[in-house]
């Protein structure tokens, strides 16, 4: 049996609070193969980002651990580059300089000056940002900032690219464009990608597998769904496929019918009320998704 590329085993995470430790994650297990695109989806506060931060090495798991290529992950490092939710570009550097900071850090002494420059420009052009290379973050739009954030992460040539709700703060149109870019990049480079999202359509469209997390406290992996849709995926074609709709349905069912809230804690009448709310909630999600599909022209 081959060793999996990235392996999360028995991860527990406790956060200290004044009232004693709060258990955010309990016994999270996940194996990810090389080149796979895995999404983690769940309700707000269920600890999806915590999982990602543990893989990144920014948090230390209380128990269990993460193994990448047979080596335990304990500290952050460029082989697990992260795209942050709010881009996290240094506001005093231009797009080019932001990527340069990462590239110089990793390839200093390995690439010549000309190669470094070429590599920075190459990565910016991967995300179609070559035209605004020398602009500072406050001079470009939110979507462009996120593109630069992705370019910076890609420029590190990571083993695993971690995306923490990368498109959460963007409008539907920009989000669709960036999702396409990410699919394109993954097809080109074949990176292993791990994305946290709360957008069902995004998860189905981009992922090979969707990891659905139960609600916290003590959240864990609830179900894992394989998305067997052929690549390259076109969002309009895909949206008509049965597999696509089935996957969406499965995720929605998990999120709202089974883990909408802690139903076991509720009295009976409220449970019935909740059922109606669940219906409303899922139709809401669909409603939100509409403009996204309509707004896509390729």
């Amino acid at each position, binding site marked *: 049996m081959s060793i999996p590329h990235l392996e999360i085993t028995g991860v527990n995470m406790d956060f200290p609070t004044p009232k004693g430790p709060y258990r955010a994650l309990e016994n999270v297990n996940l194996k990810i193969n090389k080149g796979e695109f895995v999404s983690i989806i769940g309700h707000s506060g269920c600890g999806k980002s915590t999982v990602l931060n543990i893989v990144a090495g*920014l948090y230390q798991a209380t128990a269990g651990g993460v193994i990448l290529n047979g080596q335990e992950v304990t500290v*952050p490092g*460029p082989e697990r*580059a992260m795209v942050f939710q709010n881009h996290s570009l*240094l506001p*005093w550097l231009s797009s080019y300089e932001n990527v340069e900071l990462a590239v110089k*850090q*990793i390839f200093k002494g390995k690439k010549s000056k000309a190669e470094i420059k070429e590599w920075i420009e190459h990565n910016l052009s991967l995300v179609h940002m070559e035209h605004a290379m020398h602009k500072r973050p406050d001079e470009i739009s939110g979507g462009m900032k996120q593109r630069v954030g992705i370019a910076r992460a890609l420029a590190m040539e990571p083993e695993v690219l971690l995306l923490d709700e990368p498109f959460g703060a963007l409008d539907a149109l920009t989000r669709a464009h960036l999702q396409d870019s990410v699919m394109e990049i993954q097809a080109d480079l074949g990176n292993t990608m791990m994305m946290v999202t709360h957008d069902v359509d995004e998860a189905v469209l981009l992922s090979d597998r969707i990891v659905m997390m139960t609600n916290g406290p003590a959240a864990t992996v609830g179900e894992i769904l394989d998305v067997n849709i052929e690549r390259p995926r076109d969002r309009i074609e895909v949206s008509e496929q049965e597999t696509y709709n089935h996957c969406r349905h499965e995720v929605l069912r998990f999120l709202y019918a089974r883990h909408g809230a802690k139903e076991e804690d509720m009295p009976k009448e409220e449970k019935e009320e909740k059922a109606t709310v669940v219906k409303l909630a899922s139709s809401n999600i669909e409603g939100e998704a509409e403009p996204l599909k309509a707004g896509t022209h390729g």
Partner: protein
Amino acid sequence: MSTETVDNATKMFEFFARINAKQLVQSLVIPIVGVGIFLMLWGLLAPKVVTSLGAVPGPSQVYAQFQTLVEEHKEERVKETAFYERQEKRNAKKLAENPDAKTKIRPYTGNPTFFDQIGTSVFTVMAGFILASVIAIPIGIVAGLSKTVYAAINPLVQIFKPVSPLAWLPIVTMIVSATYVTNDPMFDKSFVNSAITVLLCCLWPTIISTAVGVTAVSKDLQNVSHVLRLNWWTHVTKIVLPSAIPMIFTGLRLSLGIAWMVLIAAEMLSQNPGLGKFVWDEFQNGSSNSLGRIMVAVVVIGLIGFLLDRTMLFLQSKVSWDKSVALR
């Protein structure tokens, strides 16, 4: 050019003219009116207050005193150049008579004028302030980065910060006169005393503001630094310093403002050359012109303090990446 573009141009012009008129009133006319009212009240009320040195001078008398001070300064300069010319002539004569003769130029020892005192004070405050900043900013950065260092220096900073630097003055004077003993001093002892006093009051606000600015570096940017595994130096120069610049400058401006006030008081107290000594000397002099001359000094002290603050703002706008922040 078509008529349409001309029309548009006129419209644009009118538009900007209107905006500018409004801005002009706001930024120029109203301040002038404010100052005018102040001067008028001053002129009306001052003569009503009679002191042992005569009536309190109004704006016009003060301005007259300013002109006298300018005149005195010019006369002093003329005397000085004459003094040096005489020496050079004498030396030249000596050399002509005997080429081996030793000649020397004695420094001019006339009284420092008002403007000399301004120069001394500004130089002293800048020396103390720059020295203090060079010490305080690194300490602040280290304290902001390390909780241990912060915990170690925090009690000291908190206790020394509220101490009036004037309380330090006797200690500083004693230590300087005991330790700064050279035959050929580069600086006067009085200068060293004043500069160290300024330094002592500049340290604390800068340390505190810098530490606060460094602690406030956004968590996201720190995560970026972690993921990139930036070393300490790169982390400080690329991430910490640029984020902390606005807070550092807040501390610097606070320091410089306090420093200028303290310096004047220290000069009065210790009779070190500078504007403070000028004020004190005039007060002791007690002539009918003294009050007017002191008022000139007061206005000048205010103007210089204002200019120092503007200089810091200008520097901040040059150094800071964020030009959009309103600088006040």
